[in-house]
């Protein structure tokens, strides 16, 4: 820092004498350090957004040739898709249900795994498993375990008397849209739990121990301590992990793709998988769906920023 201190002291005089070229060079110096990061973000994150918007107004053949401008046709085609309404409704249910259940369960799990007990380390380890394995593989295991003929979940349900016969309509969980969608939400919660639980665990560990001691001295009940101390202090960690979950669950592709491919028909599709299905033949319309997805993500983030700003959590 010494060189900087002298620089600051001399600055007024130095600036007057500096040639414009040197001034530009000095302003551009940080680019040496952050330039590569900017370039990567530009090429991989920002430019695709531009291309996506442009594509949504182009008429493109299924094999990728641009046939001319489409005007607003891609959007009107998309809005006229008979399945779109169901897809949108399902997406809302998917995000709200999965994130709500995940957050409630991980509050409990974080509390449990924050307690000291023998073997806690190993138990916490097990919790990481769905996070380490790819979501794709987890989804495929569940698809296999739900097989109507010999899936291990069906075998278990049969053993405890809940399933009457194999290869029946009841055993074919992924063949019926509603039960398939419920099972996929179960998988989505399952793979979201490790991250949320670990985020809340990290939050719990930042709460100073003496706050609890003070509450104990004051004779507060356990539930009271949890409600009045733990929950409020956990709020920042909770809000952040809820937002990340919303984004992840909204963009989630592998679960639905591997378990039902969005079918039967589009009856278990969300906007993300619907966009992927459209892309195979209607690239322009798929881009239009992407634009809407993108807008929704921005809306969610802005909403989140507003909520946290108001409560003064983001510094």
């Amino acid at each position, binding site marked *: 820092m010494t060189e900087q201190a002298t620089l600051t002291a001399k600055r007024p005089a130095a600036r007057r004498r500096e040639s414009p070229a040197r001034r530009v060079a000095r302003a551009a110096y940080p680019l040496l350090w952050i330039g590569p990061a900017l370039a990567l973000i530009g090429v991989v994150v920002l430019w695709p957004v531009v291309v996506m918007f442009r594509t949504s107004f182009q008429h493109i053949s299924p094999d990728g040739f641009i046939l001319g401008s489409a005007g607003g046709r891609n959007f009107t085609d998309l809005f006229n898709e008979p399945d779109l309404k169901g897809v949108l409704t399902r997406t809302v249910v998917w995000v709200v249900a999965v994130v709500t259940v995940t957050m409630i369960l991980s509050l409990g799990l974080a509390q449990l795994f924050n307690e000291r*007990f023998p073997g806690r380390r190993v138990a916490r380890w097990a919790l990481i498993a769905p996070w380490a394995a790819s979501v794709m*593989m987890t989804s495929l295991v569940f698809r296999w*375990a739900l097989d109507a003929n010999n899936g291990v979940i069906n075998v278990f349900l049969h053993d405890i008397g809940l399933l009457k016969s194999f290869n029946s309509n009841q055993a074919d969980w992924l063949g019926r849209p509603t039960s398939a969608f419920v099972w996929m939400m179960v998988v989505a919660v399952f793979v979201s739990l490790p991250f949320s639980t*670990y985020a809340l665990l990290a939050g719990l560990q930042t709460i100073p121990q003496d706050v609890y001691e003070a509450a104990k001295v004051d004779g507060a009940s356990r539930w009271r301590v949890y409600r009045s101390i733990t929950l409020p202090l956990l709020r920042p960690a909770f809000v952040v*992990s809820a937002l990340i979950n919303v984004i992840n669950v909204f963009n989630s592709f592998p679960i639905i793709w591997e378990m039902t491919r969005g079918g039967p028909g589009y009856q278990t599709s969300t906007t993300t998988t619907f966009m992927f299905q459209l892309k195979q033949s209607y690239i322009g319309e798929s881009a239009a769906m*992407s634009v809407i997805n993108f807008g929704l993500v921005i809306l969610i983030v802005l909403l989140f920023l507003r909520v946290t700003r108001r409560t003064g959590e983001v510094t």
Partner: protein
Amino acid sequence: MAIAVTEAPPEPPAVRVRPKRARRARLTPGKVLLALTAYAIAMIFVLPYAEMIISALRPPKELLSRGYLPRHYDWSNFTSIWKTGFGQNLGASLKVAGGSTLVVLLVALPAAYYTARRKFRGRSLFLLLVLATQMFQPAAMLVGIQREFISFNLPSPIISLILVNAGFNLAFAVWILNAYFSSIPAELEEAAMVDGTSRLGALGRITLPLALPGIVTALIFTFIGAWNELLVALTLTLGAPDKQRPLTVGINNYIGQYSIDWGHLFAGSVIATLPVIALFALIEGKVVGGLTAGSIK
């Protein structure tokens, strides 16, 4: 995310130092019940992966049987899988994940160091941009990514996948490294420089070793993220040969139109998961600290 970065240092010392009496707590019935509940939950979390291993070891004849465990175990899926192009998929995944990790290291390290040490015009704008990219995933702009990289006409989709994975994992790396560098006092570097070390020498001998846990954590998360990525890989490797298709795509190819090669699918999944478990083992203690410092996909 910004929240956690400003509020919590990467490794809260308060957690480690606990009063001795807490450690020697007696096993009360309540505690036993608690531990048993935790074990049961832990079991549930591992069960799907146990089923994955068991199914990979089922002999083909027993694949459709309804026993929880096969009568015989059979390693043939693990030997015959190498004849299905799986080795080439493995190689492609190593290139994609290794390449993205290297790119993230080269790109995130200077950016994080500079933003942590210097105030300059556009600094907060840059950090905001990085934070914003964290909010987006390839799924939200897939069509754009596909069309852009097709127009680049790169010699191999592996290069595209390296760039995309590096780009979308960059944000987390910059944030966590920024938090680590900020927590290392600049005075340490200055002291070394007073003693006659050059700036780069001070960086290499003082700061980088101190930030090493953060660097390793950021790199491992990047590696795992790229290793497990499916959607972009599926999109950008359409029609590519096996040696350019990562594992996730390769494993997907065991799903045929009319039947699924479950044995190879699960054997491949087991093999693909082993390196990830090894890497997680390396950063085990850092996962919680890493989460406080940044955030994770």
